[in-house]
């Protein structure tokens, strides 16, 4: 019995139940909302958010108030970089992937070095990095022509790849499985949790704390870069500031997935459900026909309401 209860109270289960409820609600409010094709399209959007949230997730798990506000900047940078490198040609995809991942890893490295060697709090370091990246975007756009997504990339993101499901969703599923394996079944994963829950004890037990944390920020940068690449495929062209809309939602998705912002507790599977939940919620709000002010109030209030299910802090009195 208590097993059933604890199963039902798992964040991922809560999220899945809410997803189904929201789909019903959406369908009731505006018929056609929950058709198969539309759900797939929502999943494409969710996977973009979910991939950004994957990086955000591991950084948060690593503790020490881990958070990466620079993901938005990296997404934008990567979309632009990818567009320029591939410039509409399928042959350019591989170099573009390499360039984006390298850029993501580079800025993640900078974040990681600031956070570990200089011990700047991540919120501060990545907020500052966001400012730098935004500035860099302006500088870059001055010098290089804008690019187009390669057709294969666009197909990968928007068209079915296998079993009627687009490649990006497959990619997301693979990322989900790999991350779950990494977190639960590798030494690196255990080390992430270790530094997230007690950094000093981890250090005394021989965990290379700084290296692991730097790696986390690099992973985050690379996931953000991957998302930027996919975003280019999604929208066809690259343009400035596309990534900004992912900054705070990626954190919300992580929280909806039951990962504690304090670090050391949680996982990625829940985050995936959290991303889907958030995207569905946003879509419902777009399709119902009310004033924008009302939409925002409903959105804010609903977020709060949903958060009541997740990640509520522990009571101080046990």
């Amino acid at each position: 019995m208590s097993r059933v209860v604890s199963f039902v109270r798992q964040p991922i289960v809560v999220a899945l139940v809410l997803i189904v409820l929201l789909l019903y609600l959406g369908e009731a409010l505006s018929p056609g909302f929950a058709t198969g094709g539309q759900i797939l399209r929502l999943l494409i959007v969710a996977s973009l958010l979910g991939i950004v949230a994957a990086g955000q997730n591991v950084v948060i798990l690593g503790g020490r108030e881990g958070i990466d506000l620079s993901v938005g900047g990296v997404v934008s940078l990567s979309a632009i970089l990818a567009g320029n490198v591939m410039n509409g040609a399928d042959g350019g995809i591989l170099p573009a992937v390499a360039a984006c991942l390298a850029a993501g890893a580079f800025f993640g490295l900078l974040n990681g070095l600031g956070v570990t060697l200089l011990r700047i709090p991540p919120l501060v370091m990545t907020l500052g990095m966001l400012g730098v990246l935004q500035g860099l975007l302006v500088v870059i756009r001055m010098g290089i022509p804008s690019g187009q997504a390669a057709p294969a990339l666009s197909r990968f993101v928007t068209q079915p790849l296998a079993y009627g499901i687009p490649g990006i969703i497959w990619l997301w599923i693979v990322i989900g499985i790999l991350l779950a394996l990494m977190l639960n079944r590798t030494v690196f994963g255990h080390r992430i949790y270790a530094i997230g829950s007690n950094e000093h004890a981890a250090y005394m037990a021989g965990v290379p704390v700084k290296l692991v944390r730097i790696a986390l920020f690099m992973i985050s940068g690379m996931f953000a870069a991957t998302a930027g690449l996919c975003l280019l495929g999604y929208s066809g062209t690259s343009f400035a500031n596309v990534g900004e809309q992912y900054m705070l939602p990626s954190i919300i998705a992580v929280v909806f997935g039951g990962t504690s912002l304090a670090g050391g507790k949680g996982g990625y599977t829940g985050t995936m459900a959290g991303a889907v939940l958030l995207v569905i919620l946003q879509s419902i709000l777009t399709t119902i026909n009310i004033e924008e002010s009302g939409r925002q109030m409903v959105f804010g209030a609903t977020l709060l309401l949903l958060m009541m299910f997740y990640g509520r802090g522990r009571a101080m009195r046990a």
Partner: protein
Amino acid sequence: MAETATVPTYRRAGGIGRLLERYPFLPALVIVAALLLLNGFFSPNSLTFRALTGLLSTYMALILLAIAQTYVVYAGDIDLSAGAILSLVNVAIVVLMERWGGGAGAVFLALAIGLLLGLACGLVNGLVVAALRLQAIVATFATSIFFTGLALYILPVAGTPAPALFWRTYGGRLFGVPFVFYILAALVILLAVMSRTRLVTQLLAVGDDQQAAYQTGLPVIATRIKGYVLCGLFSALAAFCITGDTASGDPLVGGKMTLYSVAAVVLGGSALSGGWGTVVGSLLGALTIGLINSVVFFMGTPSEWQNFVQGLAILLVLMAGVLAGRRARS
């Protein structure tokens, strides 16, 4: 007290560390001074009394918002809705002032309601974060969306002008001294008084170690809620200043200011993890942001590089602030 004399008073050596421990905002002060000098070096006009008055009246809103943020940061929380509260109070008071005719009575009544509104928003945040125990970053982001919606409902598009009485007073002079200096003086006194209150010590103790504070018998939840209420009140004061400086209502005016307020708090040497910091530091931090923006321009940075250089400068100063702050604590 005879007993006092028996207290052992060994002290650790290290003049600078000691000084920083006492005045954690010193690095910020040095940075502000250096930036002022740089500004003056590149453009002597920027150090005139008039220019300094302008700097103050423009950044008074950000200063107050940073101070607002500081009180929640004291307790280890954060408020991403501060900018939205500012916008909401801004449109609310402008609309009310206009509706009530813009006389002195209307202005004061509207300001009083503005304060209440700030208080109410702070209370909502406090309840949501402290009483319902939602995570501060995400919960206040959600309330910021809600408050912005409310602001849009009150004033769907920027525009209503504030009564001349109001903004002319803010931008004007009293006995030959610009009004903002009175505000600054009042603010400094207020902050000095505030720093002596039990509430501030309790906020810092809660931010230091929440569980320990609870076990000690501090009213942790009430304290955190009060922190958010203070934040709401100071955000409302910030809204008054922005209304004074812009003479109008704009439902989106504060949106970008939230993250700057957080940056200002860190620039001022406060620890985001809570338990450590000063409001004076945040005041200086807000000025730092303003001065960096000017210095980048006066240095003659090409326009396409300005954002980058600003971002880099802020990042570097943030790092410097954090490193200096840590020295103080170690």
